[in-house]
């Protein structure tokens, strides 16, 4: 059934209608119109995507000179706090986004992949700069492009990219999260369900939660 919107600008009328609704006196067409005007309907996926896209927590992780540009986007001039991305997390287990900011050497690649596996779903990755995407000027025996070992959502070109470019990349990622959350290409990297749990599997008894016991200096 078609609902005709009527602009109700009178505050007094709105108050009476709300009282009718609460008393249960409002019915039929009047009720339909009231609900249509005041309730936004959506799907759970879209609502979750909206929330996730507006609260991405990046990981505090810098590799090279691009990290300097990455740091400047949290400063006052560019200020990604406007979009809800300002909380750089110090632990991969609390972060949603890893920004590979710099060159990835062959020796560093397994370390990065492990950090990526330690991050919990939902998680995303941005490859920042030429070195990380195509090895740039360091196209030699020492480096490996990041696509080789983990799934990358957004590549930001530049050497280094300006902070505006990185911010554009992050906003592209936000559009991606909110618009097309499922792309189905992580399976090709065997990057689904690879979250690293505690040693010994998911046996989360209280005795196992403390990975390093008091006095144990093995992890220091």
């Amino acid at each position: 059934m078609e609902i005709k919107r009527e602009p109700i600008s009178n505050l007094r009328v709105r108050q009476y209608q709300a009282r009718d609704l609460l008393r249960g006196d409002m019915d039929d067409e009047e009720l339909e119109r009231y609900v249509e005007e005041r309730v936004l309907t959506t799907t759970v996926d879209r609502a979750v995507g909206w929330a996730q896209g507006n609260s991405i927590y990046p990981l505090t992780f810098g590799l090279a000179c691009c990290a300097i540009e990455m740091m400047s986007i949290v400063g006052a001039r560019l200020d990604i706090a406007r979009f809800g991305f300002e909380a750089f997390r110090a632990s991969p287990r609390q972060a949603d986004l890893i920004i590979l900011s710099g060159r990835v050497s062959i020796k560093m690649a397994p370390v990065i992949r492990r950090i990526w596996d330690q991050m919990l779903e939902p998680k995303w990755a941005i490859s920042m700069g030429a070195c990380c995407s195509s090895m740039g000027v360091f196209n030699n025996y020492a480096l490996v492009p990041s696509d080789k070992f983990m799934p990358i959502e957004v590549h930001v070109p530049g050497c280094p990219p300006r902070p505006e470019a990185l911010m554009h990349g992050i906003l592209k990622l936000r559009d991606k999260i909110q618009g097309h959350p499922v792309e189905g290409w992580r399976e090709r990297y065997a990057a689904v369900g690879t979250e690293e749990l505690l040693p010994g599997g998911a046996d989360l008894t209280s005795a196992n939660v403390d990975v390093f016991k008091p006095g144990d200096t093995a992890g220091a």
Partner: protein
Amino acid sequence: MPDATELELTAQELRDAHSDSILDTEFHRGRATLIADPLQIKAVLEYLQSKGYKFLASVHGVDYYPHEPRLGVLYELMDRERVERISVKARVSTDHPHIDSVVELFPSADFQEREAYDMFGVVFDGHPDLRRILMPEDYDGFPQRRDFPVGGEPVLFTYNEEQNYGKYV
């Protein structure tokens, strides 16, 4: 830097002490170089150390391709009291890239000999812990040699992503 005369005197002293230990000398743009026999490199450096060159500033490898013997090992020594530097160069072939380690004389040579081994494949006999230092331990080849391919990993683009995805997973 020692001047050309002093370089020749040092070379002659070394030849008197260890016969055939110095094959040649070079004096180029104020830089004095002794070209030593790789089999006697330890004796040469020990003699120079006793003469006052007590600081080993650097050990590095060079690939002189296409000249033979291809590989060079350079030792940069310094006398900190007279503030003088001297280089010692030893050439080894890629077929038998062996030279004695000088870690016993100069402990600072430890990591630098490992780097020369990592990049050029020069084997330092007698080194306490000779393994790769910069590249991964399972890496094949010696990347700073001239016959090592220049390019790195193939870059992924849209046209070749299918054949590369998951290759290294």
